Structure formats: structure tokens, C-alpha cells
């Protein structure tokens, strides 16, 4: 059991989008800044920084979480998926495609978080009702208020994935 003192750093190892990454972090480093600043994965956005807006949503060991409210040290050993890890061999994930097809974004700030929440929903519920989509996105805010098209984008992705 390794103890890290104040002002010391600690080595953590995580698997991000299938690649093992290792880094020295301060205990107070938040996971979202670790992803952005240490790993250069700036697709995960910092919005409110107070666990409200969901712009920083990622999958941590397969579950959607707000990475602004998790310490990087807590994620040591975990598997992480960010929006950069969704495309396969150059082909966008159906949810990403859906946001394009249905104009599910305006300024784009909330988009990575919305996409990650939608991906998480469709993993466990591939044919969600509109009500289920709305509930699944309750932890993601769009300040452009583009919700209608975001919901259409998720519906599109569900229909596309089924094929």
C-alpha cells in the first residue's frame, strides 16, 4: 500500500481507448485534466467543472461518469473510453454519425459528453424509447438548447446500429 504525501506525485497506469498509458500525477489531479493535459485527449471537455453539465462524460470501466469529479488516482488500473476511442478504423461510431445526420449539435461544446452518454445508453438498451433517451441524457446540458435534434440523433443511431 503506497502512500503519497502532500506535494508528492504518484504513478498511475490506465488503459485509454485500448492503449496502456502511464503518468505521474498529483493526487489532486482530476481525471478530466489528466486526459486533456497529460494525454492530449482534448475531446473530453470541461464545462461546468461541478458535476452538473456532463461535458466531461467518459466511460470508466464501462460506465458513464463525470470525469471532473473523479481523481486521476482513483482511476488507477481502470479502462477508460473517451470520445476519441469510438471510431473504428476510420469509421465513425453510429452515435457520432447520428449527430452529423440529424444536426445534433450547434456550438459542439456539449457534444462529446452527449455522445458518450448516448453510447452508454445504447450499450444496455439498443432500442430506447424517446422517454428513455431523454432520461438517459438527464446528466448532460446543452446551452444551445439543441435537445430536439440531439434526441433525433440518438434515435438515428439506434436505428442504424440495429442493421
Amino acid at each position, binding site marked *: 500500500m503506497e502512500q503519497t504525501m502532500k506535494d508528492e506525485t504518484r504513478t498511475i497506469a490506465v488503459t485509454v481507448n485500448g492503449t496502456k498509458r502511464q503518468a505521474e500525477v498529483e*493526487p489532486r489531479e*482530476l481525471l478530466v485534466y489528466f486526459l486533456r493535459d497529460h494525454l492530449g485527449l482534448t475531446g473530453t471537455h470541461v464545462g461546468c467543472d461541478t458535476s*452538473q453539465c456532463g461535458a466531461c462524460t467518459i466511460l470508466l470501466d464501462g460506465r458513464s*461518469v*463525470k470525469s471532473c469529479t473523479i481523481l486521476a488516482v*482513483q482511476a488507477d488500473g481502470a479502462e477508460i473510453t473517451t470520445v476519441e476511442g469510438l471510431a473504428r478504423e476510420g469509421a465513425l461510431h453510429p452515435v457520432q454519425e447520428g449527430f452529423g445526420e440529424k444536426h445534433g449539435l450547434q456550438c459542439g461544446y456539449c457534444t462529446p459528453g452527449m455522445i458518450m452518454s448516448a453510447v452508454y445508453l445504447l450499450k444496455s438498451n439498443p432500442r430506447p424509447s424517446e422517454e428513455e433517451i431523454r432520461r438517459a441524457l438527464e446528466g448532460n446540458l446543452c446551452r444551445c438548447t439543441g435537445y430536439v435534434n440531439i434526441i433525433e440523433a440518438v434515435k438515428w443511431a439506434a436505428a442504424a446500429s440495429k442493421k
Partner: protein
Amino acid sequence: MFPANFGYVAPRSLQEALELLDKHGEDAKLLAGGHSLIPAMKLRLARPGCLIDLGRLPGLGGARIEGDSLAIGALTVHADVASSELVRRRLPGLAEAASLIGDVQVRNRGTIGGSVAHADPAADFPVILTALNASFVLVSPSGSRAVSAEDFFVDFYTTALAANEVLTEIRVPLPSPGAGTSYAKLPHPASGYVVVSAGALVIRQPSGLCASVRVAIGGLGSVPFRARATEAALQGQQLAPEIIAAAAAKAAEGADPDDDVYAGADYKRHMATVYARKAIEAAASNKR
């Protein structure tokens, strides 16, 4: 926005956690899911010198039957309380409360033990767990004790947890056949926190009369408020809508809520009667 500097250690056993807590004393804070503590640390409302991360302790997640109680590990996340077959079947009011906390991502990370130990007056679990007469298992180097929800919640963010204790388990007595549980909530539209909420446990006699009832209300004070006037008015009565409504109308009797920027005290008292009625009606009709 970062928390102030702190030291960090992730014990691998409860024994190690207790030793660390003993060593660091008041300078240490226990970290579970971090969904109350990390925001508080960012705002400098909490500034521990050392975090003891319980996240890697084995055996503190999941729900199981233990004698005549449901035992829920303190590290069980809200989403797992909400989706547990066992909880949904035996204590649907508890599953409902868990499903109404925060949002999907928060429920994937926040833990029942963390919520209880944080004792936010606008949290959901303290209310339903008071209604269900739950107790909390607190372990210290000298042994363990079980404290009832009503004795555990002392004041705003203040519990009976001693500085050298770890909350390991939540124990909820399994209601007898013919009992129902429910939780109803008026959430703040932006934050999702409780403005007013009500938890109810209703035990019916085969005749349909109310054998016993417990009602707890959130949002009326620093800790969950037992609506004793409502309970007394229902005891031994037929569980008919008009009788439930008349009893629920007494839900805020004896409570002294504060005005706040979102809701005035009178409004909260009125909402207490509305949500008490919803919770009791649902518990009375959802016989299990």
C-alpha cells in the same frame, strides 16, 4: 478548479483503512465515490490533509439478504441500488429513491455509504432509510456497532460516525408480507436535490387496516423529519384515499423549515403534505 493539495492512500483492506484513519485522525477524510467530497474540496468547504480512498476495499459492494434484513455494502453505487433485483422486489421504495438521485453519471459513481455519511439535508437516501428504519454498521478498531438512522443523522452534514469509524454496511429490515414501501420527491429543477421528499413504509393487516406506518420527510430541517402526527392518524385505520389524505395533511406538524432562495417555509410545509400523500398511497397499494 482543483482541490487544495492533499496526501493520498488507497488501503486494500478494512483493517488497513482503520489503521490509517487512526494514524491520521481529523486530518484525514474517507473517500468513497467522491461525489460529495470532491465538489466540497474544490470549493474548499473541505480541506483534508489526507484522503483515504476506500474504493479498493473488497466486499463492500452489492446487496444480500442477511437474516431478516437486506444488507447493502457501503460502496454500492446508486445505480446498482436502483437496479438490484433484490432491492426492487423487497424494498421498491429504496430502489425508487436511488433512481431519483442526481443523474445517470452521478448514480454510476456516487455510493450509498458516501451519501449517508455526508448527511446532506437535501439528499435522498437519509429520508427513505429513516422511513425504512435502517441501521448503519460502523466499524472501529475496537469493534463494530449498529446505529439506527434516526440516531445517526444528528444535524446538517453531521452524523454519529466517530472519527475512528468506517461505515461499512446499511441494514434495512425486510418488511413483512403485506407491507409496501415508497419514495416521492419534489426535486429542485436545476440541481435535482430534494426540495421536499417523503419516504413511507406501510404495513397492512390482512383486513386492509393499517397495522403500522413510518413516514419520513426530507427538506423540512437539518435531518429527516418523522411525520409522527401522520403516522398516528393512520395507525389502525382503513387505508382509504380520504383517510390517507387527512393523515398526510399533518405531515409537517411539528416541523420548522427555513425559508430559502428557492422555497419558502409555508410552501415546503404544504409540499410535505402533498408528497407524504403520494408516498403513503403508493406504499399502501404496492403490497409486497
